[in-house]
């Protein structure tokens, strides 16, 4: 059986580190991992997607439409954009924080999170909404939205991630002085999702 994670957001939000944490956690269990990242011009404020595919029955590094067990969305509009990737019985963990595009500032159109979240709830079986902004403020760091969301998906069986493996991955990949903060964020994400 494969487990497919799709992570989406806007360039610079930290999707790459989150996907590496998932890969490292899965490899700690001896599983095969394939993944793919958005690199290059699109990183400059564009939509970015990371694909992480765990298991041995994987050919393409990209998840096919309708193939993601879990979508981790750092931005609600990007979650809507990536929804066709979700399996029928898949789970979405989504941040409430909208990133306004420069084009929206020019046209005066402001995007709100509510219609995005409503749409997700109507079309996905399970949606975990995390107010990452509030939790980041509470914990005093703007850089932990990614680990908050990872904590949230730990609570669902579809992710087949274990807390211990994820903690091990953080210790392996995150700079020592930020390890404790990110482990706390995992726990806060778990608590917020429950």
């Amino acid at each position, binding site marked *: 059986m494969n487990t497919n994670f799709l992570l989406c957001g806007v360039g610079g939000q930290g999707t790459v580190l989150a996907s590496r944490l998932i890969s490292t956690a899965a490899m700690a269990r001896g599983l095969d991992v394939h993944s793919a990242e958005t690199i290059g*011009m699109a990183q400059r*404020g564009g939509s970015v997607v990371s694909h992480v595919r765990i298991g041995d029955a994987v050919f*393409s*590094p990209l998840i096919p439409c309708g193939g993601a067990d879990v979508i981790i969305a750092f931005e609600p509009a990007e979650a809507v954009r990536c929804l066709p990737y979700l399996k029928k019985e898949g789970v979405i963990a989504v941040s409430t924080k909208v990133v306004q595009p420069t*084009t929206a500032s020019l046209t005066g159109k402001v995007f709100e999170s509510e219609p995005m979240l409503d749409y997700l709830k109507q079309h996905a079986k399970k949606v975990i909404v995390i107010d990452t902004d509030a939790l980041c403020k509470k914990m005093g760091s703007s850089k932990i939205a990614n680990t908050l969301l990872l904590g949230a998906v730990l609570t669902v069986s579809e992710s087949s991630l274990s807390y211990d493996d994820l903690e091990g991955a953080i210790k392996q990949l995150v700079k020592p002085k930020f390890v404790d903060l990110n482990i706390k964020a995992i726990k806060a994400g778990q608590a917020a999702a429950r």
Partner: protein
Amino acid sequence: MRQMVMGNEAIALGALQAGVNVVTGYPGTPSTEILENCAKCRNETGVYVEWSINEKAAVEVAAGASYSGARTLVTMKQVGLNVASDPVMCLSYVGIKGGMVIVVADDPGPISSQTEQDTRTFGGYSKLPVFDPSSPEEAYAMMIEAFDYSEKYNTPVIVRPTTRVCHAYASMDIPELPKAHKYDGFVKDTQRWVIFPRTSYANHKRIFERNTTILPDDFSKSKYNFYRKLSLGDKTGKVMETPRRGIITGGISYAYICEALSMLTSAANKTNSRTDLKSVNPVLLLKVGTPYPFPEKQAVQFLKEVDEVIAIEELDPVLEQELIFVCGKYHLSTKIFGKLSGDVQCAGENTVESVKTVLNKYLKLSGEGVSASEAECSTEHNALDSDKPDLPNRPPVLCAGCPHRASFYAVKQAMKGKKTVFAGDIGCYTLGNAAPLDMTDTCLCMGADITMAQGFYHVDPERHCFSFIGDSTFFASGITGVVNAVYNQSKQTICILDNSTTAMTGHQPHPGTGVTMMGDVVNKVSITKILEAVGVTPVITIDPMDLDASVMAVKAADKADGVSAIVFKSPCIYVASKLGYEAKKSFAVDQSKCIGCKKCITELGCPAIVFKNGKAFIESSQCVGCSICAQVCPVNAIQRQA
């Protein structure tokens, strides 16, 4: 050790595993990380690594090393091969001594490139063998083999990954790296190393024989070219019914086909579980890992076992045309479908979905149950679309605080109302074309800004001609253009957007940064001195973050009779702290002073500024304190935060 390896890292590790001695290249998405990963291992292996000033220089440096018996790797993106093609074409005739592998990364889509050119076709043109990996794992193994082929056949070898292989990651077991290859040094031999018409004639005959008989036979036995029977729903493996169908593919499309076929098979199994399995035929899949020279013998064998074949590949119909050629040569009646028959998209990337759609039609699976899930999937998506909220477009933009925004704005202000042309170039600053700056009228290829501005001037001397070029691009291919413009008496203002790095590809060092890939701190090559030496006057260096001074500098330079230049010097926001610049406090809009005129938004298009409740608002998490919006605000409502 088992590790998560990026495709480009796998390519680097393959080369290091083959004992590569010298690695050269020029940055370009999607190839950049290959050389960077080689550099990481320079201490343990003893490899020499450099960012050359461009791809032509990279190939020539590698050629000298290779003539000395060293194993060499050159890395570039597909358009870089255009720059390098002069030495590459000649090297093909001369040959090499130490194995030489040229990795050229193609970019179907294109995702970050000007063209969708196909380096496999360059193999035939330049007479160089081409390997085409379909995964990071295969890329690693092919690199090792490519060095052996290079030495066995005395020729540079091209390895051509595409973006989705370069940027894919796989968990791989990588053995410990050996020390770099031992070599005996250069031995003088003018017959061999000096290219002359008569030696090229003799070499042409030798290469022709190699590429038309020896290598195709060798490649027909290669493990990278194989075909196998795939059953769709039929587990008995019985003889295929008519028509017997085949698929030919290579590169990442192979992975998409395997994925699509496994999805179609499980769908067929579900639908046909209680009905007749005979309704779905097995299919023969030929995967080609060496598109040039084409493994002809194997293809003939394959073609004899099928009545029709579909070619699924990206970029040019290379495999499709090879099969058509083989059918003609051997009088085979196998029908060939693909891009040329209109059955496969002729441009852009393939995806699992696009391949699935093509296969569904080709294998005539519709009406046999498999299409049910497809149809269901598409209705599901249509249902999704009807009440879907509007989604924001997110075209790539200059970062908040990017010094290029300030430079472009200064030129725009200084030249307001004048008849102008703004010739742009390749780099982050190509994004200066976007609204509201709208400051890039042309962009063609690396280095074309200065030379094109010259062309605009000669046919329209009244026009104020400006060229925009980054510091790395200036070294790569701008300097010859400056000499040409000065020598040929043109008039233009060259704007050097010097942000002290190669930003778009991920902040590589270049001659102006004073750092090399070997970790040495060296003298910085001065752009200003080069311009002055060539005869550009005046050459004005200015900090673009001082808007008024920049506008005055542009006006002064524009008044010059010949070629003038402004060096807009301010570091990329991503390297500023590394260069020792202190982080600046962010700005905020005083909501009581803001009159809601939106000038900061409509003039600059900075992603940190949004319009909320009739007032401008700065996202402090994005603002890096560049101050340009504060300089633009007509009522002084934008202030640096305490």
